[in-house]
């Protein structure tokens, strides 16, 4: 019986946030704490001749000033956690990412000097008295131009700016032959522009060394406390892991940008011991713009071929992916195994080849941002499909129905083997698009569009996407280059009174795990949800964890909890059997008690837990206690999918776009808390739509981020959106115990191309047969498109 699973239980964590009692890293104040400010390079490519800190150091209240020279050579910098090899088998280029630069800065925002003072204001004031003599060089910011011969080198010790090249799928000649024989080929050159994650809480880190215990504590705004500890201890500072506690307290959003191990975390940890004081660093928003790992930034050429009946016969994609100046933790995985592997989409395309060149540029690092590679893959496919429909004068929805992979449940029917390495777990694609069309009122809309006379252009855009979540089977990702396992762990401690503490390696920074996970635990144990507490984000309390990203928390972290719950119930049954003087096989567990089948003899969960800790009358050969840890390593990714439809209206006079409606029908497998899943979809949609209409990081030729503040970077606001119209279908995941697939990224992955497609559709209806409008689709860009 489920009392909680499937219900919109109100969030248990809300109260502290609603009353101002959330505890984010910057809210933490330690005794004798000092404050760090990092002086960063104002140039994208420059050699440091001299750093003069003498005047700054003499300022009252300045505790210390550190430069690269204060860091031992043995500390090379922060590592990359994913290795991709060149096509010829060579290992990717992996230059060091120093904590503070000694000689050469490689992007605007590269850290050069750390000033530590009694207050942040004093540290900032002192930074203005530091004199750094730079020789400035030419920069390159575009990932394609960076690969050209003669481009300014980001790392002069490397032969070129190419980090790696990579290819996946069918042989190129087979794809070329299929394209050559196609009845129609749609080709598109486009840029999936760089965006800035913009979690509302800027990153913050506090390092604290405790001399009494010879132990460090790092509080940091991270999605990933244990991995941060592992990377920092083993690969950066060389500190024994058991001597470091990493806490990710309340974290104000992540969206990928807080997965990674950043230089500032290692700096405050390392120098807290040297200084003998806790050191806090908190980014201001300008620093966040310059240093939080960015997302996307692909330059792509793609061709999709169709036969005379509209069946896709082949896809060829070439992409240049911008890595930025240094490799961030998961950066190489994004344009490769999270992008190339998704180019099957929902379609039966028999020949697919994807070719990726990743390059270094004089820009901030690019890494996973909500969706991570899958939005880029979806954008590529869905833009091509809608454009092909316009070019071939067929209906874009019909074109999709024609090409969908037939339904398969992954249980009685096998998973679907793609041309690009993955095997989809379960899928039923027609119903999501059918439902979305119903919600739109498709026929009526097309009539309205045809009859429009108000000086505006109406357009409709489609996107039917698939993603790979529940990251990930360790052996699989290991074979693909991951330098970490991607399992999850969970400990379930039943207290003597029957209250339950659950320690999960997943990390909540807005996703509501304290509620969703508690729903699962309460239902499986048949106890009130109030009796369950979910604990996360502290390496001293949670033994191990791999953190939250890739929509993995419930599918992987939740499954680890279920494994521990099963162990609790199995042992509990043995204790109950002893108390009931029955065989464990004759018992059934329901509503929080074990009952001898066919009788009214029962013993409650709380009595069994008490017996486990007060084992006076106790079965022989069984240890006291009711406490189990589990590690869950999934056997496959999960594959959520959905259909998104955007309706836009363009003002012919100004090019302004109004997003009139947005319909999303998503299938994320089983749903534990519909309210929370809806919230995840809403937020994802806003980020995806934001990329289409508003957002984009802009570097000029010199490598300056010219819109690095909220005065310049267009963050989506409440009045930019209509209320979203959402629904879902349910195709359970066949390979995890909860049947869940993950909902964190779906909204972002599906929505971006739907909006662009809607604008292109509107323009075609107005007689402007343009293939592409650069994102973000500003009124100016749209207006210009109508002048041709």
């Amino acid at each position, binding site marked *: 019986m489920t009392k909680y699973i499937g219900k*919109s239980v*109100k*969030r248990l964590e*809300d*109260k*502290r*946030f*609603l*009353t*101002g*009692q*959330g*505890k*984010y890293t*910057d*809210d933490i*104040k330690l005794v004798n704490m000092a404050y760090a400010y990092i002086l960063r390079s104002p140039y994208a490519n420059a050699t440091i001749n001299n750093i003069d800190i003498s005047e700054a150091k003499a300022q009252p209240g300045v505790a210390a000033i550190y430069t690269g020279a204060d860091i031992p050579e043995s500390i090379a910098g922060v590592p990359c956690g994913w290795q991709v090899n060149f096509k010829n088998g060579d290992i990717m280029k992996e230059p060091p990412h120093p904590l503070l630069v000694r000689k050469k800065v490689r992007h605007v925002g590269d850290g050069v000097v750390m000033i530590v003072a009694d207050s942040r*204001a004093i540290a900032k004031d002192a930074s203005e008295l530091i004199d750094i003599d730079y020789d400035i060089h030419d920069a390159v910011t575009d990932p394609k131009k960076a690969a050209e011969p003669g481009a300014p080198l980001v790392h002069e010790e490397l032969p070129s700016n190419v980090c790696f090249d990579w290819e996946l799928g069918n042989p190129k000649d087979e794809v070329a032959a299929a394209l050559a024989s196609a009845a129609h080929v749609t080709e598109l050159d486009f840029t999936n522009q760089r965006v800035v994650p*913009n*979690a*509302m*809480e*800027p990153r913050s880190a506090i390092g604290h060394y405790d001399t009494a215990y010879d132990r460090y504590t790092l509080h940091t705004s991270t999605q990933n406390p244990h991995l941060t500890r592992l990377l920092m201890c083993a690969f950066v500072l060389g500190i024994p892991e058991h001597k470091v506690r990493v806490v990710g307290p*309340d*974290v*104000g*959003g992540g*969206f990928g940008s807080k997965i990674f191990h950043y230089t500032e975390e290692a700096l405050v940890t390392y120098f807290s011991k040297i200084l003998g004081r806790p050191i806090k660093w908190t980014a*201001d*928003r*300008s620093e966040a713009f310059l240093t939080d790992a960015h997302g996307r930034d692909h330059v792509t050429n793609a061709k999709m071929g169709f036969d005379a009946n509209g069946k896709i016969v082949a896809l060829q994609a070439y992409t240049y992916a911008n890595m930025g100046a240094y490799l961030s933790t998961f950066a190489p995985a994004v344009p490769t195994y999270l992008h190339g592997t998704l180019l099957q989409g929902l379609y039966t395309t028999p020949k697919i080849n994807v070719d990726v060149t990743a390059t270094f540029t004089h820009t901030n690092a690019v890494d996973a941002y909500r969706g991570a590679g899958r939005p880029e893959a979806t954008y590529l496919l869905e833009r091509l499909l809608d454009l092909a429909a316009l070019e071939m004068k067929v209906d874009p929805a019909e074109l999709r129905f024609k090409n969908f992979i037939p339904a398969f449940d992954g249980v009685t029917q096998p998973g679907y083997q793609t041309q690009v390495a993955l095997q989809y777990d379960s899928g039923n694609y027609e119903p999501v698009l059918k439902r979305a069309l119903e919600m739109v009122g498709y026929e009526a809309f097309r009539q309205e569009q045809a009859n429009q006379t108000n000086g505006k252009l109406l357009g409709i855009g489609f996107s039917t996407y698939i993603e790979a979540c529940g990251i990930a089977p360790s052996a699989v990702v290991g074979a693909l280059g991951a330098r970490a396992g991607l399992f999850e762990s969970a400990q379930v401690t039943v207290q003597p009174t029957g209250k339950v503490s659950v320690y999960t390696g997943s990390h909540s*920074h*807005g*996703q*509501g795990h304290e509620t969703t996970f508690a729903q699962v635990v309460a239902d499986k144990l048949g106890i009130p949800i109030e009796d369950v507490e979910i604990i996360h984000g502290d390496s001293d309390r949670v033994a191990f964890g791999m953190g939250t990203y890739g929509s993995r928390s419930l599918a992987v972290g939740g499954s680890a909890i279920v494994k521990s719950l099963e162990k609790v119930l199995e042992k509990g049954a043995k204790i109950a059997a002893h108390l009931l003087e029955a065989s464990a096989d004759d018992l059934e567990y329901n509503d929080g008690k074990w009952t001898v089948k066919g009788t009214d003899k029962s013993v409650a969960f709380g009595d069994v837990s008490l017996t486990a800790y007060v084992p006076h009358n106790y079965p022989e050969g069984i240890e006291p206690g009711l406490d189990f840890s589990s590690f869950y390593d999934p056997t496959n990714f999960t594959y959520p999918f959905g259909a998104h439809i955007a309706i836009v209206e363009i003002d012919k006079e100004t090019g302004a776009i109004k997003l009139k409606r947005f319909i999303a029908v998503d299938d994320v497998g089983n749903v534990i808390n519909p*309210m*929370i899943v*809806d*919230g995840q979809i*809403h*937020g*994802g*949609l*806003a*980020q995806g739509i934001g990329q289409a209409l508003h957002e984009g990081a802009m570097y000029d030729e010199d490598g300056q981020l010219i819109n690095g*503040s*909220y*005065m310049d970077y267009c*963050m989506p*606001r*409440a*009045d930019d*959106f209509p*209320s*979203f119209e959402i629904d879902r279908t349910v195709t359970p995941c066949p390979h995890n115990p909860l049947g869940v697939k993950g909902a964190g990224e779906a*909204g972002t992955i599906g929505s971006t191309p739907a909006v662009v497609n809607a604008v292109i559709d509107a323009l075609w209806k107005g007689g402007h047969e343009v293939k592409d409008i650069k994102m973000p689709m500003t009124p100016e860009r749209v207006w210009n498109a109508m002048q041709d």
Partner: protein
Amino acid sequence: MANKISINVNGKMHTGAIEARKLLSDYLREDLSLTGTHIGCDTSSCGACTIHLDGKAVKSCTILAVQADGCSVTTVEGLATNGELHPIQEGFKEEHGLQCGFCTPGMMMTATDLLKSNPNPSEQEIRDALEGNFCRCTGYHNIVKSIQYAAKKMA
């Protein structure tokens, strides 16, 4: 140079000497440890630091603490009375108007000011009123519903 100020915050008088350049947001967080007021930007754009100054919603990073001398300030910590949630707090809970919680205090302070001047706002009026408050988690969808919930409750 230190300047003496007296500010009533959430019904309690605070008197102290502070640097003239200190922002009200920093004063609340650092001097009074009222860390429910958040700082999300340096350009007075994001609204996470919104408080009430003499009853009106103000971004506390746009004014100096010394400018608030003699004024009355309400922060998110002062919204609930005797442990009972304010209708706007209840609305955000009931309608899932928050995820990470970082923008939430500012959102609620802006929303309560809106409801004071416009007790029955339309969806568009709510969206317009929130243009100075960023949220990256919710897509604003449920924030709008939370404010509608509070409006109904307060009517």
